[in-house]
């Protein structure tokens, strides 16, 4: 019998700890327990057998750390083969009458995935895939992914299982006492991610004893529509009379687990410190439990690597700003591969109150597949909001969904067969909430009933692909009222019909409604409020729009979604006053302006960002942009730079000035089109391969940009080849390399070597915590710079030399 069939009507008992028992048998600290499958098969078999005798239906093979990062391909195969054979032998010898299965145990790799570690997501998938293929080959009955404390790595393992075998997959995560994974995910986020990808059972193991895991298990019970696993520790280890013991004994453990089995847990076992006695006690204590019915929760949600966003409770705001349509600067940023621009848009929308970010980077002349993947990876590195992946390119959609660390919103599908055939298989494989536009081959029906009919057809098709109704959200399309006075009314009727007739959620791109009208913001805000009244669940909107935010906050307060109007009051108090507020002088006192040539110079020197931007804006009315750069910004920076060199100004102050100067530059840049803002030469900068520290590099970049150098930042952990390629492409006269660790200096040396061979014209300046003049000389750099200012001085020197030698530069 397949375990998933048995699970439908029964409670399944797992095994308990393995590692703690092996230590008792003499496993030394740091020794790899997986080798014991080969060296001590009798010990492993006896442990498995004892669990079967205790009543376990499933034992996990001794393969927790069996992967290619720890073993050679040959040894790995031997280990997996032996591990499964050991479990099978124990199964055959055991006497219990219960049904029995062997699960291939998959634990974490022990490495952190990029961007905060150095293991690439696809490499993690391959590592898991290799073990899983072996498990399937040697006859495991199911895959048991467990003790995962990072959502992204969990996704990699589950994806590997789904792509490489047809076996059932159970997935269990390790939550800390704060109720989160080590990298931040809460239970609802894990449920959304894992259910979306088709895990057969999900749950929690390790970390804590059964009582301490109650809160986490309750969250799983609340959100999950699949059976739930519970495999706690025997509490925590303690030393009593010189002996290490776990502080929860079998009876207490069994009571704790049995209580949660009564409340709906369907798969129960133990983790660290538990033994066959714990399992036997658990089975006895829960003998009277009736297997809880697995209820479909009908929750429409998306998730990030920290939390989920549920539709239907409170209106969901989807920030629309990461989209080049109609935005000149955004288009330029995309063409120049300026990821920072996208990140800033993301961060600002989050600060303004967006719950989800739409991500669209489609432009005719860029590689959308590559760009979308990069944008998704970079955004999810620093922003914990769920993302809505917005593309009509199916390949880009797949690449982005694959890399996305959570359950994404998929924008979009429509009633055309071709669209559904492209999008639904991706949604099925990677999980996701699909935005479905109510249009088809014949366009957008004028009447709400026509849009409802398309929605019905989309639902029917989705079902064929195995996608549930709760994972479709309809966009009944807002059309401008300037073309058709009844457009908004029909859209709102469609919202109501879809909600009442189909029981589905809706989302609207609100701002379309006012296209062609003056004062669009006002129309949008009112339309949003009216649509919310009809039952709209979400809007794709501009979080910078005050009218939209007003509609959102007032609606929540009026609809009883805002206890004590707390959020509304905070929002109202944050609204700008009609009377001009005093200068935002949060930085402290300003010295007499006589020290500086002008107000702008003072603002920059004192690091007042907003002021610097305002003053620049004002000054642009009377002064040429380049004159502002030459006569205002650069002198101010020089004052601060010299102060830094003389140690009267410290690094944070230097940076504050640099940021203020940058904000002034940005104002100037937005006013200049085509004009060349600088006469400085190209500067390529990177943190070398293997090194993930980039704060020093970022500081140098910022200051260089202040001084007008067009800096191409290749990021961190950059391969020598990539540095060479970019240096050649730009014919860059200067390359800056940064390394923080002694272990990455060889990578710096290799980069220099390759640059000398392939780009002999360039000067190389190096910096970073471990470097000094001696090191720099030894690895063949042209210059060691101890800080950002020294780098600037050197770059200016090179730049002057170039201009002297060759006026074409």
């Amino acid at each position, binding site marked *: 019998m397949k375990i998933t069939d048995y699970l439908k009507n029964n409670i399944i008992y797992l095994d308990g700890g393995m590692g703690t028992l092996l230590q008792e048998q003499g496993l030394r600290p740091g020794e790899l327990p997986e080798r014991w499958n080969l060296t001590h098969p009798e010990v492993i078999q006896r442990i498995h057998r004892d669990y079967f005798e205790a009543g376990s239906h499933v034992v996990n093979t001794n393969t927790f750390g069996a992967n290619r990062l720890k073993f050679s391909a040959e040894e790995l195969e031997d280990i997996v083969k032996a591990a499964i054979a050991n479990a099978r032998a124990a199964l055959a010898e055991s006497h219990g009458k219960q049904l029995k299965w062997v699960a291939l145990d998959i634990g974490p790799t022990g490495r952190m995935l990029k961007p905060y570690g150095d293991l690439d997501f696809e490499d993690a998938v391959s590592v898991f895939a290799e073990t899983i293929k072996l498990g399937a080959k040697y006859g495991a009955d199911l895959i048991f992914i467990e003790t995962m404390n990072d959502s992204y790595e969990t996704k990699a393992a589950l994806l590997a299982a789904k792509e490489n075998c047809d076996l059932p997959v159970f997935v269990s995560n390790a939550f800390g006492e704060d109720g989160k994974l080590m990298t931040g995910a809460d239970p609802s986020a894990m449920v959304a991610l894992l259910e979306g990808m088709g895990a057969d059972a999900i749950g929690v193991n390790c970390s804590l004893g059964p009582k301490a895991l109650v809160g986490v298990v309750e969250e799983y019970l609340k959100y999950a529509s699949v059976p739930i696993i519970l495999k706690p520790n025997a509490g925590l280890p303690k030393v009593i009379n010189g002996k290490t013991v776990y502080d929860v004994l079998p009876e207490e453990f069994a009571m704790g687990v049995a209580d949660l089995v009564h409340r709906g847990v369907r798969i129960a076992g133990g983790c660290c410190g538990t033994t066959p006695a714990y399992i036997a006690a658990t089975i006895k204590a829960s003998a009277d439990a009736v297997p809880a019915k697995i209820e479909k929760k009908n929750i429409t949600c998306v998730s990030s690597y920290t939390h989920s966003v549920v539709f239907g409770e409170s209106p969901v705001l989807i920030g629309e700003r990461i989209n080049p349509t109609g935005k000149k600067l955004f288009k330029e940023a995309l063409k120049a591969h300026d990821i920072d621009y996208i990140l800033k848009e993301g961060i600002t929308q989050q600060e303004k109150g967006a719950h989800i970010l739409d991500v669209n980077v489609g432009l005719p002349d860029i590689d959308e597949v590559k760009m979308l993947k990069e944008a998704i990876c970079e955004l999810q590195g620093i922003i914990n909001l769920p993302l809505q992946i917005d593309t009509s390119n199916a390949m880009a959609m797949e690449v982005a969904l694959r890399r996305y660390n959570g359950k994404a919103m998929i924008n979009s599908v429509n009633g055309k067969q071709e669209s559904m055939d492209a999008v639904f298989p991706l949604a099925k494989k990677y999980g996701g909430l699909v935005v479905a536009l109510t249009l088809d081959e014949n366009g957008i029906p004028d009447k709400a009933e026509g849009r409802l009919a398309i929605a019905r057809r989309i639902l029917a098709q989705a079902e064929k692909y195995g996608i549930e109704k709760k994972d479709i959200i309809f966009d009944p399309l807002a059309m401008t009222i300037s073309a058709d006075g009844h457009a908004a009314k029909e859209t709102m009727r469609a919202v109501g019909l879809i909600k009442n007739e189909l029981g589905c959620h809706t989302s609207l791109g609100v701002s379309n409604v006012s296209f062609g009208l003056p004062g669009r913001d006002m129309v949008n805000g009112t339309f949003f409020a009216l649509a919310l009244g009809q039952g709209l669940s979400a809007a794709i909107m501009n979080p910078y729009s005050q009218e939209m935010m007003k509609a959102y906050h007032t609606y929540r307060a009026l609809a009883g979604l805002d206890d004590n109007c707390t959020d509304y009051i905070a929002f109202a108090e944050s609204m700008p006053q009609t009377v001009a507020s005093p200068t935002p002088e949060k930085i402290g006192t300003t010295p007499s302006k006589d020290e500086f040539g002008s107000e702008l110079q003072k603002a920059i020197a004192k690091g007042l960002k907003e002021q610097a931007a305002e003053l620049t804006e004002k000054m642009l009315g009377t002064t040429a942009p380049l004159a502002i750069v030459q006569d205002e910004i650069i002198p101010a920076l020089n004052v601060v730079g010299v102060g830094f060199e003389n140690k009267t100004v410290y690094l944070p102050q230097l940076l504050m000035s640099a*940021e203020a100067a940058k904000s002034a530059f940005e104002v100037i840049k937005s006013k200049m089109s085509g004009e060349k803002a600088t006469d400085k030469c190209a500067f390529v900068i990177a943190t070398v391969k293997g090194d993930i520290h980039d704060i020093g590099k970022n500081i140098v970049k910022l200051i260089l940009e202040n001084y007008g150098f067009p800096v191409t930042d290749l990021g961190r952990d950059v391969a020598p080849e990539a540095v060479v390629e970019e240096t050649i492409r730009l014919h860059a006269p200067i390359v800056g390399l940064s390394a923080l660790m002694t272990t990455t200096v060889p990578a710096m040396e290799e980069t220099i070597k390759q640059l000398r061979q392939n780009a002999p014209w360039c000067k190389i300046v190096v910096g970073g915590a471990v470097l000094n003049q001696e090191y720099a000389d030894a690895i063949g750099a042209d210059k060691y710079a101890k800080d950002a200012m020294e780098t600037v001085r050197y770059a200016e020197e090179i730049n002057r030399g170039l201009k002297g030698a060759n006026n074409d530069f």
Partner: protein
Amino acid sequence: MVNTVFVRTYCAPDYNKKEILRYAGVSGDAPELNALLQECLDEMAGKLVYRACYREFAVTHYDSYLDLGFIKTESVGLKKNLYGCESIILFAATVGMEIDRLIARYATVSPTKSLLFQAIGAERIESLCEAFCREVAEEKAKIGFKTRPRFSAGYGDFPLEVQKEIFAVLDCPRKIGLTLNQSLLMSPSKSVTAIIGVGK
């Protein structure tokens, strides 16, 4: 006796603003940074976790090397540090992933804040190590032992490569979510591993 890795979780130690500013490169007075620093501290409140895992090993002293129970080392510096010690507490500590995310988040929008978060992280992990070492010292004092200043891989002639063995015996990824990459860098970055000598 089954030797196990123990885990401890701490409440946030008090902030030392002067230390934070020192880590940020400020060696004198910089009152204009106070507001921004406070903004960073407020933003970070509640986001960090303070975890340490540790394990005790007996030490055997030989003429030319030390047997630490999980490795043998010829490090002169460590030998000096552990002179007269009977055992060591090997520990790893981290303040978690969130501080790395904050540092990265502000790298683009406000490098000043990024630098301050970097400095805060350095001060936080240092304070966590102090709290842990103080606690160990107190516990050992009760049974008549004294502890030595902590000593990390990479100090003097004690090679950084030892990190691999340390991570294996402390099971850091599982116990406190701390990982080691191929360049021997730790993620989360605001983390420390070290040895505390214990002797009469």
